[in-house]
Structures are given as C-alpha cells and as structure tokens.
C-alpha cells in the first residue's frame, strides 16, 4: 500500500516534466511547420503570378489587343525607332568605337523626345555604356539601360516612343519612322521632314538610291551614305512592343523581335506589377 502511494507521488512530477518537454518541442515544431506552410503559399502565389505573366506575354505573339473593364493593351511597332546599337562600330581588330554622327543623332532625339535640357549628358552616358558593352545581347531593353545608368524613369518613359535596343542588323524602317525620328536622323528642317515623310509613305521614295538623290538636293555637301546603310524601306515590321494598362496605368511592357528565320521571339518583358483578377 505504502509502496503504491510512493510510486504515484514520484510519477506525477516526472509526467509533468515530460509533458513540459514535449509541449516545448511541439510548439517549436509547430512554428517551424507554420513558417514552411507560409513559404509554400508564397511560392504558389509566385507560380500563379508567373503563369499570369506568361499569359500576358502570349498576347504579343497572337498580335491582339485586349480590352476589358480593367485591363487594356496596345501594340506598337518599333521598327521605325532609332536603334541605339547604331552608336558603335567594331573594327576588324575587334575594337569598338563610337560613331560621332550617330552620337549627334541620339543627342537630337533625346532633346526632342524627352525635352530634357541635358540631352548631351544623357547621350554621353548612353554612348559610354554602349561602347563598353557592345554588342548587346538579346533581352537587354531600354528600361534596363536607363536603370543601369541610373537615369530617372520618367526620362526613360519619354524616350520609349523614340528609341529601341536591338542587334545592329535591325535597321531603321523609314516608312514607319516618326517626324521626330526623321528630323533627328537626317537633321532636316520641319518642312523638309513633312515632305520626306509624305514621299516615303506614298512610295515616291521607295529605296536608298531615291532617298539619296532627294537628300542630296536638300544638302549638296553632306554625305548621306553612312546614314543610309542603317535604314530600310520595308512594309513589314521586325520588332514590336505590347504595352499593358490596368485602369489606364501602364503595368507591363513586352518586347518581341523577329529572328533570322522570320519567327517572332520574346526579347524583353518588364512587369511593374501583375494584375491577378
């Protein structure tokens, strides 16, 4: 009888101690599992977001705009935009140098498109980067360049309708070029640019020879040969962008380029946020 009560008396604290140890281990284990479950849900959300972004990216290949109550899109051809890769030239020894004439074009474009007072400084930093990093690889976009140079995003956004980054072989399609681009590229006055744009659109100037003849009449002393090497008069586009808006605010910029086989491929996608509805 005595032995029995002693046994009970000694078991209770031991049982309590075991319970305490087990509960401590359980609480810590629970916290650990809880954290992993929370990480899992974050991972699932990130997968869902990637899938949504992929769906948006497909729109550019389907060549269609979306219009609903919240989200809309707009396709823009980029072939008529100035290609920043024209700025550099790599010689036979593999040395990359800046093409001064192209630097002047870029400066004029920046001044006219973004209306910035320090266009030369911006053009200079872009040129320095391009000389140091030429040739650019697929996927590198204008917004990336501006962020690399720590240029304000608002300046970059103003320049999006004027500039593009693509391999050097992607020449300037003059038929799709804006007045600002033609003006800056050939350094003509507004009246001559208006006429040139009209002739290009109407087919009166269908090729480089015709354009060379026309330009030489406007400026007899200037040699336009080098400039015309970077141009084309094609009716098809080789580079396009899709801008996505949510409630009127831009949230995505998708860029697709035609490869050597003439097939569209993704060049660069920038999502500032991803609408999940």
């Amino acid at each position, binding site marked *: 009888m005595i032995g029995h009560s002693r046994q009970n008396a000694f078991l209770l604290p031991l049982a309590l*101690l075991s319970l305490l140890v087990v509960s401590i281990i359980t609480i810590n284990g629970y*916290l650990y599992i809880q954290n992993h479950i929370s990480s899992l849900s974050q991972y699932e959300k990130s997968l869902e977001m990637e899938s949504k972004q992929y769906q948006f990216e497909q729109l550019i290949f389907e060549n269609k705009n979306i219009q609903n109550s919240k989200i809309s899109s707009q396709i823009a051809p980029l072939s008529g935009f100035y290609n920043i890769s024209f700025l550099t030239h790599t010689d036979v020894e593999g040395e990359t140098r800046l093409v001064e004439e192209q630097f002047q074009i870029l400066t004029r474009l920046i001044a006219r498109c973004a209306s910035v007072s320090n266009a030369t400084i911006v053009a200079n930093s872009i040129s320095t980067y391009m000389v140091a990093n030429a040739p*650019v*690889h697929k996927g590198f976009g204008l917004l*990336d360049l501006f*962020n*690399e140079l720590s240029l304000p995003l608002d300046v970059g956004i103003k320049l999006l309708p004027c500039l593009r980054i693509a391999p050097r072989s992607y020449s300037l399609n003059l038929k799709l070029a804006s007045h600002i681009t033609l003006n800056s590229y050939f350094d003509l006055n507004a009246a001559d640019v208006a006429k040139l744009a009209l002739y290009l659109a109407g087919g009166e100037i269908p090729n480089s020879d015709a354009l060379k003849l026309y330009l030489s009449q406007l400026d007899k002393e200037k040699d336009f040969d080098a400039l015309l090497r970077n141009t084309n008069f094609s009716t098809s586009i080789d580079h396009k962008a899709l801008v996505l808006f949510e409630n009127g605010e831009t949230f995505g910029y998708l860029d697709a380029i035609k490869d050597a086989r003439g097939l569209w491929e993704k060049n660069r996608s920038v999502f*500032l946020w991803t609408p999940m509805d």
Partner: protein
Amino acid sequence: MIMRRISAFTLIELLVSLALSGLLLVIINQQLQNSFFLNKQIEDQLEFKLQVETIFEHLSADIKSATLTANGHKSVKFSQLQDDFVFEIKRFGLAPKTKQITGMTVKWRMGANGIHKSISSSEGVSERQYSKNKLSINIKNFAPHILKLEIKTDKFQKSKLFIL
C-alpha cells in the same frame, strides 16, 4: 490506559522521504530552469533561422526582379567590403516614401556586422538593419551565372542558389 498504535510512517521514514522530496524538488527545479533556458535558446535559434530564410526570400525576390545588363544577365554585382559581402542589385520598385515606381539600387550587406539592406532611389536612401548577429558568408559560383550563397552562424548554416 490502553495505547493504540496507529499505523503510520516512522520518523526515519519521514526524514528520508523529506530528504528525498527536497532532493527531487531541487532536481525538478534545475530541470525546469534548464528546459526554459533550452526553450529560449531553441526559440532564438529558430527565430534567427526563420529570419535568415526570410532574408533569402527577400534577396531572391530582389534578384528575380533585377533589370538586365547588356550581356543579357541580371544586374547583380557582389563584392567584399572588409568582413562583409555586398550584393548590389539594380531593379524597379516602389520608392519607399512616395510609393512611385522608380529605378533603384538595392544593396544587401551581410557578414560580421549582421544583415543590412539599403535602397537608393531618386528620392534618397532608405536603410534597414535586419540582424546584428555575426555571420560568416560564403559565395560559390556553380556556373558563370549560378550563385550559391551560404550563411553560417555558430549554431547553424543555410544556403540557397540564385540564378543571375
């Protein structure tokens, strides 16, 4: 007078049981103190381990949203500054004060001085100290653009791969 003996513990038995109970109380007290101390240690370690995991997630998100460089890879640079490693990531994001989308440079500094993050954007620099615990950092390049970051403390080590 008839004396009735009531059955009970003898004095010696009581003294022995008291001594044993006292001893047991001391042992239980020590065990309890040890348990609470151990629990605090586990909690601190776990908390820091989870904090490190969270930091890996934050760093991963920063790298994932990094802009690209001309070579087509993420704009992520890492360098060593005294005993610390510094990750410099260029990305777009919300400016901490104005909540406007802007280009920014995110710097993660990890090492002997703990973990520190700073964000530089057009509106200035915002800083945050995530931990003051001393860490040992090890970085390995598995492939030209695959990076393994290993964080070591005296209690544990964790690592994560990042694709640049």
